[in-house]
């Protein structure tokens, strides 16, 4: 058991879930108190001790299925399974077998007969996966193969046909029931495939082929819609942290000026001894944040992310100003702010904002010029400016002096570039020309990198210091 546990912890670390030594020991101690016959008990115990962040739970579950999934059947049975598999793989697969299984599974799903369903899934994987012992192919491949041969999409339609509801609400509920059923089927098939693979190749090898990046490691430029939706929930806490970092924070623990009136008032309780001095609470400074977001086509996915970030920031702080640009720039602050919903904000942004001037290809120079001409007064020595974009200006004049002017007026200017830094300054990227005017230029392709940027963020203490730093940097 301990061996399995250490291998499992290794796997979690390899995926990127931080598991400390102490936590691994806790897990080992927890195991002593668990009913090991129950898979769920083991799962609860390990998740409570090893995973301390909700967004890592999905990775934990995937790895758990590989390492502690359904018990491997004894040798003979496994051998028999493989023999069957080999036979099935030799034949055509699909054909009548698949059709019969399809009907049977549809019936079992309809009836909610879990026992029958499990048996059918075992058969489906045997007959349809084409899994052969010893062949190194990723686990995901077999899963898709089974689902495709079985006709999972058709299955959904079949179940929908059976729904006989006119009432829209009842219909919607029925559709969601079916979606849940199909999801359950997918999970079970995936588990079964994993179980077979583990029996053949051992958990370590299988886990390697099944790894998916953690939420914080997903490339934001190429995230899928589903991944983005998950990322959106992770952005909230991060935005809050960023905002507090951006605020001019006083050193922790420092109190404000002595409050003479209250101190004397309090001293009356102690017979006039000034025992308990009272201080005025330090004024909370509000962060002023100015965001310039490239929302052109090449940035579409990333732009959605930055706007989500903006959205979370704007929901908490009134002093956030948002400007979007493609080859022209417009103030879009009005679309964000408390009580707004991201979807409508994005819609309004694309339909109402004047962000396209000529052809809808990024033109950083023109956008920056627009900003200096119309909005420079909104930048004050207290505002931090955040530019997000790939600095690919389609070979147009970058107008670095416009950025220099903004940088000079601001307290700090940061550039977040969603492109891998090795591609900067290739082709039409002019990152290097803008860089001298930025307090920092960071590659931010993942949430993890954004987190690190937020962690490291130290605002320049004073404008004078900053001028010196920029001159030398």
């Amino acid at each position, binding site marked *: 058991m301990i061996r399995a546990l250490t291998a499992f912890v290794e796997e979690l670390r390899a995926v990127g879930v*931080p598991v400390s030594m102490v936590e691994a020991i806790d897990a080992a101690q927890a195991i002593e108190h668990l*009913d090991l016959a129950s898979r*769920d*008990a083991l799962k609860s115990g390990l998740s*409570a001790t090893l995973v*301390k*962040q909700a967004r890592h739970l999905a990775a934990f579950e995937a790895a758990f299925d590989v390492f502690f999934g359904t018990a491997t059947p004894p040798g003979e049975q496994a051998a028999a399974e493989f023999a069957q598999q080999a036979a099935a793989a030799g034949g055509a697969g699909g054909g009548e077998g698949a059709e019969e299984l399809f009907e049977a599974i549809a019936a079992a799903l309809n009836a909610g007969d879990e026992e029958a369903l499990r048996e059918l899934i075992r058969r489906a994987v045997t007959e349809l996966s084409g899994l052969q012992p010893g062949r190194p192919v990723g686990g995901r491949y077999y899963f898709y193969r089974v689902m495709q041969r079985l006709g999972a999409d058709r299955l959904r339609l079949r179940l929908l046909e059976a729904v006989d509801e006119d009432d829209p609400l009842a219909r*919607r*509920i029925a559709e*969601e029931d079916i979606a849940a059923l199909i999801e359950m089927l997918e999970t079970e098939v995936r588990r079964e495939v994993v179980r077979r693979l583990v029996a053949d190749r051992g958990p370590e090898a299988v886990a390697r082929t099944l790894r998916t990046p953690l939420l914080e490691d997903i490339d934001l430029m190429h995230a899928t819609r589903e991944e983005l939706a998950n990322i959106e929930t992770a952005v909230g806490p991060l935005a809050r942290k960023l905002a507090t970092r951006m605020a001019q924070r006083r050193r922790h623990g420092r109190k404000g000026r002595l409050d003479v009136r209250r101190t004397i008032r309090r001293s009356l309780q102690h017979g006039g001894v000034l025992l308990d001095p009272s201080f005025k609470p330090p004024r909370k400074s509000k962060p002023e944040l100015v965001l310039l977001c490239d929302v052109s086509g090449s940035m579409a996915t990333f732009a959605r992310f930055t706007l989500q970030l903006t959205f979370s920031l704007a929901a908490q702080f009134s002093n956030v100003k948002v400007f979007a640009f493609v080859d022209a720039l417009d103030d879009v602050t009005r679309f964000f702010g408390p009580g707004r919903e991201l979807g409508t904000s994005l819609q309004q942004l694309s339909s109402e904002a004047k962000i396209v001037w000529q052809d809808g290809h990024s033109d950083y120079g023109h956008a920056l010029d627009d900003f200096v001409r119309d909005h420079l007064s909104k930048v004050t020595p207290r505002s931090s400016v955040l530019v997000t974009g790939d600095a690919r200006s389609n070979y147009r004049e970058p107008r670095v002096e416009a950025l220099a002017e903004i940088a000079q007026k601001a307290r700090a200017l940061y550039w977040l570039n969603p492109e891998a830094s090795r591609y900067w300054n290739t082709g039409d990227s002019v990152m290097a020309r803008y860089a001298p005017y930025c307090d920092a230029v960071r590659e931010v392709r993942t949430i993890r990198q954004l987190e690190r940027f937020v962690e490291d963020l130290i605002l320049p203490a004073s404008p004078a210091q900053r001028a010196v730093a920029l001159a030398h940097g």
Partner: protein
Amino acid sequence: MSGQWTSPAEIADSFKELGYLADTHITQIVYLADRLEKPILTEGPAGVGKTELAVTLAKATGRRLIRLQCYEGLDEAKALYEWNYHKQLLRLQADEGKAWDDLEGDIFGESFLLTRPLLDAITSQEPVVLLIDEVDRIEIETEALLLEVLDSFQVTIPELGTITASSRPLVVLTSNNTRELSEALKRRCLFLHISYPSVEREREILLARVPELSDSMADRIAKVVRSIRDLKLRKAPSVSESIDWARTLMALGAEDVAAGITDDTLGVLLKYQDDIERVAKELKLAELEAPS
């Protein structure tokens, strides 16, 4: 002293009697927390029963519940202990003329200490349940204050020395995940993520809390609530809100959920006007739009 229970199933039973339907995941972790003497850190959306878990835990074990509500700016004096200046001063005045050494030993004694929740939990003679609610609201620097209490159940007061708990409290921390907690804190806890219950469990909860509900009605309500949660509203309905909603529907004598979904009752479930409008639109409730 550990080992209040002999199995997770026992916990489920005793919780159920108190009207808290815990799934096996929750009971398993509560059981482990009891066995390993570790705090539980619960996280999840608002209103899924995180705080309720601690309250139920206290009731089930017959322990006193001590609650520390966290907020921004919470400090040592509010969480741990404070010296009672006024009493100390009175003492000094009353004893004028006495030797300094006597006095000093005197005024820094336990009778001049104002205990706050954390110290209270440590010094308590009978075993307690300590609930540290919404721990994500305190600043990250203040978190450090909790660490000594959480891992060795002791408090160090410079003038008095270290006070160790005579009986180990069961500790539950709750977080709404508005910010990330420090590694140090998380490492010391068992992590329990509570999300919205499955349809089946929500139905059971509804039936347990609103006994006059029929089976089919509870099922319907649970499913409509699932639909609504999928919409990604500004504030998704919590379990307690769906219970309230079920009660409202019952009170109005609604026979079907569809008939019960009106602007008036949705206000029980949802807390923003634009959410209400969105739900009405998305669930295609034609009859809502007709009258206006």
